């Protein structure tokens, strides 16, 4: 493939991945905040007869999900984007 086309596609793809991942996190976080702002009673529902509320489960999940998403991004970059990058630098 023409190097110039490959370069343009690489930049596009790189930005696409960066912004998609960022958007995912931002949507998740701000939905959480909006629920707190407008429908807080939703977060107070108790799960499975225990004392874990929807809010706590959701909050802890966001932390874990953030870590997983950074891991996925790193894996994609290490195993895929870096290879294209090396090709472009040749």
């Amino acid at each position, binding site marked *: 493939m023409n190097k110039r086309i490959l370069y343009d596609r690489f930049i596009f793809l790189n930005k696409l991945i960066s912004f998609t*991942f960022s958007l995912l*996190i931002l949507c998740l976080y701000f939905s959480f*905040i909006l629920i707190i702002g407008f429908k807080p009673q939703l977060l107070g529902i108790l799960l499975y007869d225990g004392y874990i509320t929807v*809010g706590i489960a959701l*909050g802890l999940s966001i932390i874990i999900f953030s*870590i997983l998403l950074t891991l996925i991004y*790193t894996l994609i970059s290490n195993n895929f984007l870096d290879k294209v990058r090396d090709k472009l630098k040749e």
Partner: protein
Amino acid sequence: MNFFSLIILTVFPSITLASNEESSYFAATIFILFVFVTLLITYFASKKTDVKENYYAAGGKISGFQNGLAIAGDYMSAASFLGISGLVFYSGFDGLIYSIGFLVGWPIILFLISERLKNLGKFTFADITSIRLEQSKIRILSATGTLVTITLYLIAQMVGAGSLIQILFGLPYEIAVWIVGVLMIIYVSFGGMIATTWVQIIKAFLLIFGASILAFLVFKEFSFSLSSLLEQAVKVHESKIEILFPGKLIDDPISAISLGIALILGTAGLPHILMRFFTVPDAKSARISALYATTFIGYFYILTFVIGFGAIVFLSDNYLYLNENGKLIGSNNMAAIHLSHSIGGDIFLGFISAVAFATILAVVSGLTLAGASAIGRDLFVYVIKKGDADEKTELKVSKVSSVVIGVIAILLGIFFEGQNVAFMVGLAFAVAASTNFPILFLTIMWKNLTTMGAYYGGMIGLLTTITLVILGPTIWVEVFGFKEAIFPYKYPAIFTVSISFFAIFLISIMDKTTNKTENHKKFEKLTRKAYLGE
């Protein structure tokens, strides 16, 4: 042991820790050991800090994992360890809302900033903005943004340090501030980034280790069931079941969103954090350090959540830790400290106290170094000397600046004794989000950005933030004592970030002084470097 006791007695003559002597001796022993090891590192580092690469960026030799720990260390200040566990202790679920806000900035830094930062910059984030914008103007703005951010942050840390050490070790406030200040000056001026990084790595390890044990001990009492821990907490807390869902801390959506914006974009604009991405060898290591940092910070916030609820269970009706009004001795911020004693005994209290002290020391060192490089490099070399200064002079100015910043931090720390300075961290985040982040982000992402746009737009962002915070409830009402705030919102970021971006956009578009083709050409070059590293 006699030897240590002697040192302890001479250094800490009046140890009267909250609980008893044994734990304070143990705390002092661990702390002195920490100081001894870090000073040793500083001594060896000082032989290498006559080279810019080593002084500002530890020679780019820090690995991704090490840097991840160091970044996490910079972020896990005593304020977030003690503050967030204290917040959970006080209001339960609301503490978690803060933790999440502090964490989600990190994935964003990884996705948008870390690799590009490493590919483009050398020592300060102004190195990046000045690739395509006019050096002197943009360095003035970046350095101002940096200095305002770190000064606010430093004051909050110093005041926190003084009162914490006063409670933990029974040292007078002023002496505590001086000890922290002098040690930080030694680390930064002699050991530069090498010493600052290793201080941070050791402390991050100790803090994660200590917090893990604390959370483990809490969890063990409840056979590792989160539900039973929460059940017990609901039983003893005065707010009962309300601690399990959103409370009064965030009552209107605008404030909530605004706080979120400040935390996320502010994190991506904190100079002492951005600077750490220059200490690794390449973009891949920068990426890996952001991954580790996110993991450590996320794990740490889960721990503080458990620690906070543990504190509710073990401290709420334990008269050993409450004063005559039924409030926690010291303040809510002492929740983690008291818990460590209640659940782990004297030795563990000593350990956690020493770790808290080390945490403050490490964080203020990072801040001071960020400030020193803004003065020595951005202001002195590129603004005053117009880029014409040799390495030796530059380093001398940076090192002297670190001493000056250290002394100013000590004096401000003493000046603000007893004041509520918690709002300063919030203000620091707001300034970082409305000044540093927009110019950095738009430099990398927007081809039509011009020097005029970044300079005046950034200044407008900075001034609006400071003005709105002063006119808002935190300063106008709580500090100045007026009845009603002129600007109604506690967290102005939603407005200031929008104003800043809009101003930069508008001024750049209308700017006729910049040659468009040349600007786009520079942007092309920058893009290539940002993504390919060449």
